[in-house]
Structures are given as structure tokens and as C-alpha cells.
């Protein structure tokens, strides 16, 4: 049996971790099951991903597909056709724009990602506090997160000073944060929307010597960040999960479904975002993850 796995390329930290978990799982399962084969492809854009899927079907005769769509809209049609041909389809993280195509859906929850962070801000900031936001790469994911965050802040009296794109990138976030710091004499908190960006933002804040003035909330549960939360770092009070390990779950469940016929594993697994605090940080810390 062959399972195709198609995920975005490691162009930012979270995607990198995704790649890591996918590769680990594939390696482990290939050892575990003699007659199970995997085709793993990584893709820089939607067009390439469609090509990869075409290649899997045309040349590798896949029996099941685990796919994290680069974008929902363009991938919906091609995946639908694969599903219609009788191939098992597991969709990860980014839902398709038509319902009922996939057999299995394993995903994080972008809305809850934004809302969890937003709620924390509302609870821990006074009315009139000032917040800056670092957004990700312009995508619908980023839009969903930011909208949920803003919705959570609505009516709380917490003021969002500015939102610029840090592109889920440390260097870009560093630059944008530096400029925020020059621009605003008063900032009480930063929502970095991703731990890579949080690292960049913290670098800029430390440089400006304004550590005592504000704290930073990132997201996705990067090892270093979880460690800082665990150690009670004032700058990083909490983190919000969006586990890249979901791909491992998806692959495992799919393999199980393919190998043990008769036990259909269809359904939905939505991993809503949790708030990592000093108390629960330990359970989110994975020593050997590269992320």
C-alpha cells in the first residue's frame, strides 16, 4: 500500500516543524509496516502542489493521501477528483472549500488561535492599554486569526496601535518591531501571532531596553518559547498552541485506516488552540523537536 503525503515546504518555522514531524512519522511507519510505502512531497505554492498530487496519482498509484493544502480554494477541485476516484483522503489543517470531500480531517483551529490570544490580552490588560500586532504572510489563515483576535478585543478598550506583516519570519518581525518601538513611546503588549516572529520581536525589544514595559505573546508552541513560559519569563507569560505535530497524527490515523481494513477512521479531529501557561507548560515541551 502507498500513502502520499503532500505538505508545504519549510519556508518558515512552523512549516519546518511540520516537515520534521512528517518525515519522522513516515520513517517510523515505514519501519513498522513492511508493506507500507510513503511518497512525501513538499511544495512552495499551490500550483506545484497540484502537480505533485497529479504525479502521485499518475505514477505512484497511491491508495491514500494526506494533504495539507497550501491554499484551500485551488486545491479543492484536484483533491475532490482524487477522492472521487476512490482514494482515501485525509486533509490536514486547512479545510477545503467544499464540505464532505475528505474521509478524515485533522486540523488546528485558526479562529481559536486568535481568540485564545485575544482573550488573554483582554484579561490581562487594563482599559486603554496599547497593543501592536505582527501579522503573518498575507493569507486567509492570517486573516482568520487576526479577525478572531480583533473580535476578542472588541469593546475591551484595549487599543491596537498598528498591524504590519512580519511574514512569520524572525528577521522581518525584528525589523517591524524595531520600527514600532521608534514610533510608539508606549506599548503594553505585543501579539506576534507566531513564535518565530515573537523571537524577532523580543530581540528588538531587548535591544531597545524596553523589556520591562511590555510582554509578547506568540503562538504555535515553539520549544524555546514554551521553555521561557515554563521558567516564568516576564516577557513571555503565555503561548498559544497550534501544534505542527498534527501532521503526525494525521499520517498515523491514515496509515491505521489503510492497513487495518474494516476499521474506518473517518471523521474530524479539531485541535483547538490551548493557552500554554507556566503551570501546564511542561506537557507542551518536546525535547527533541527542532521547533
Amino acid at each position: 500500500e502507498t500513502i502520499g503525503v503532500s505538505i508545504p515546504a519549510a519556508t518558515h518555522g512552523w512549516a519546518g516543524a511540520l516537515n520534521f514531524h512528517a518525515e519522522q512519522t513516515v520513517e517510523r511507519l515505514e519501519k513498522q509496516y513492511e508493506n507500507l510505502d510513503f511518497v512525501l512531497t513538499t511544495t512552495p505554492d499551490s500550483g506545484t502542489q497540484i502537480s505533485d498530487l497529479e504525479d502521485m496519482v499518475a505514477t505512484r498509484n497511491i491508495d491514500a493521501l494526506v494533504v495539507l493544502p497550501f491554499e484551500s480554494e485551488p486545491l479543492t477541485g484536484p483533491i475532490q477528483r482524487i477522492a472521487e476516484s476512490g482514494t482515501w483522503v485525509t486533509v490536514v489543517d486547512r479545510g477545503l472549500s467544499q464540505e464532505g470531500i475528505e474521509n478524515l480531517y485533522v486540523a488546528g483551529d485558526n479562529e481559536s488561535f486568535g481568540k485564545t490570544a485575544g482573550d488573554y490580552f483582554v484579561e490581562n490588560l487594563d482599559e486603554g492599554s496599547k497593543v501592536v500586532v505582527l501579522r503573518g504572510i498575507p493569507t486567509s489563515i492570517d486573516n482568520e486569526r487576526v479577525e478572531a483576535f480583533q473580535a476578542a478585543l472588541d469593546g475591551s478598550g484595549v487599543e491596537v496601535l498598528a498591524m504590519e506583516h512580519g511574514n512569520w519570519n524572525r528577521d522581518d518581525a525584528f525589523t517591524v518591531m524595531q520600527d514600532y518601538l521608534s514610533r510608539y513611546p508606549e506599548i503594553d503588549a505585543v501579539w506576534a501571532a507566531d513564535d518565530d516572529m515573537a523571537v524577532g520581536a523580543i530581540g528588538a525589544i531587548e535591544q531597545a531596553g524596553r523589556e520591562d514595559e511590555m510582554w509578547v505573546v506568540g503562538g504555535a508552541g515553539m520549544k524555546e518559547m514554551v521553555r521561557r513560559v515554563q521558567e516564568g519569563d516576564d516577557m513571555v507569560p503565555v503561548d498559544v498552541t497550534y501544534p505542527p505535530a498534527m501532521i503526525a497524527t494525521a499520517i498515523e490515523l491514515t496509515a491505521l485506516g489503510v492497513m487495518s481494513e474494516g476499521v474506518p477512521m473517518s471523521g474530524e479531529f479539531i485541535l483547538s488552540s490551548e493557552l500554554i501557561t507556566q503551570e501546564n507548560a511542561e506537557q507542551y515541551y518536546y525535547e527533541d523537536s527542532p521547533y
Partner: protein
Amino acid sequence: MSTASTNGAAARGFKIDLTVLGPILALLALVLIGILLNPNFLSYANITNVLARSAFIGIIAVGMTFVITAGGLDLSVGSMAAFIAGLMILCMNLLIPGMGENLGVILIGVLVALAAGLVAGAINGLLVTRAGIEAFIVTLGTMGIYRSLVTWLADGGTLSLDYAMRELYRPVYYGGILGISWPIIVFAVVAILGEIVMRHTAFGRHCAAIGSNETVARYSTVAVLRVKTLTYVLLGLLVGVAVVMYVPRLGSASASTGLLWELEAIAAVIIGGTMLKGGFGRVWGTVVGVLILSLIGNILNLTDMVSPYLNGAIQGVIIILAVVLQRKGKASR
């Protein structure tokens, strides 16, 4: 004189052969590797897939061949494609409430795409020729502009074609005649026309002359500015054509549409034997270059031999090797 010159001619003939055979040999080598790696490589489905997906870059690269031959460069084609795709989808979606979901909407969409390509190409061309700015800078600038505009049109997300519309439009990518899908047919037609224009019309010859020596061309009464502008307009139009084939495939456009197409198109042109500094171009070479690039991706998907992290490295090595093959004759120079 006679002995010396015949020797000279023979030596010259031999040299040309290498540069002609080079890209073809590289392509054949890749095909062979593909066959060895996977029996399905030569299957109808796979061949169709590879050819059809080459069509976008291919159509654009044919236009790029003219621009480069005339001594220009266009870095904006990728984002131009994204922008035009966005515009086209937006227009079609706006028309549906009034016109319903029918072929008329598609037709208008196609016209919008072609017109937008024409205008975008003309803007690049005029900035290069009339304002006298280096092509690299002009198109780097418009690259940023179009990429931004599509992000803005899509509000940071994805612009999607109405679902029913998409089903209607789908056959333009997935359909075909006699088992040959439309994108392949369009690509072939564009390539053949391109080859004819390059070799058998005054326009093609003037492009080469301008790329070789602009002053000479001007002194020989070639309308230098007009020809140069036209190369960009032609490229823009072909970007429009590529978009017309592309939208039915994805049904959407976003900030990541067409990313790095410019590099791929330019690479295909150069792998095909056209000189980056201008003066000499060949369209068939570009077609071979495009196929080489597509095949590399396809072959990497045929096997698990390398970690996907290293795909880029393999691609890089093969691109360099493909060109080494054809430049062998000149290496000693």
C-alpha cells in the same frame, strides 16, 4: 585562404552542433532517468500532466525569449500573472449576478486577461524604452507593484472564482481534443508561432540585431524603440494567455500565485541556449528548457531516493549540468 577558411568553417560547424544538441541531450538524459526510475513515467497520464503543467511557464518563456533576445529582461511576469488572474476572477465574479453563469462571462474574462496583459506589458515596455530606465529596475518595480495589488485585491487572502463558473471553465485546462489537452495545444501553437516569428519575420531578426548592438540597429533604420516596446507587449499578452489557461486549473488567485515564475521562465530561456545579454535567441530551445525544468520536478516525485529537503539541490545541480552539456565546446575559451 581556401584551405584555412574551410577548416575554419568545419570547426565552426562542429561548435554549433554542440550548442544545438546540448539542451536536447540533457532532455533525453532526463527522460531516460525517468524511464529507469518508474515504469509509469511514460504513461499517457504522466506525459499529459507534465506537458500541460509546463504550458504556463512555457507560454511566458516564449515571450521572454523575445525580450531577452532584444537585450531586455522582465522580472515582473510572475506577479503580473497573479495580478491578471486576480483581476480576471474579480471581473467574472462581478459579472455573474448580472449575466448568470455562462460562456459569455468566460469570454469577457478572457478578454480582460488578454487586455490586462497587453497593458501591463506596454507599461513595462514604455518605461524601459521611453523613460530609459534599466529593464531590471523597471520590472523589479512592477513586480512588487503587481504582487501588492493582487494581495490587496484579495484582501490578503484568496480570490476564488464562483464555483459553478469554475466547473464551466474547467475544460479549458482539463479538456482537449483527440486526447491532447488544451494547455498542451495552446503551448504548442504559441511555441510554433514564436519560432516562426523569431526566425522568419523581420521582427525576430530586429530583436536579435537590437540585442546584439543597439546602435547598429538604429543606424540600419530599425525602429529600435518600437521593436523593444513590442517585445514587452508580446510578453505581456502571452502572460495573459497563460493566465487564461491557468485560472481554470486553480480557480483562484492569491499573493502566492505565480511566485518565482520569472526566474523559472528566464532559466528556461537560458538553458535553451538564448544569450542573457541578448543578440541571439531560439524559441525551440526555450521549449526544451521549459520541459527540462518540468521534468526535474516530475522525476523527483517519481522516487523517494532523496530527502525532499534536498529537492532544490538536485534541481540546482541538474540545471547547471544541462547548461554544462551545451557549453562544453566553449569551455576552453
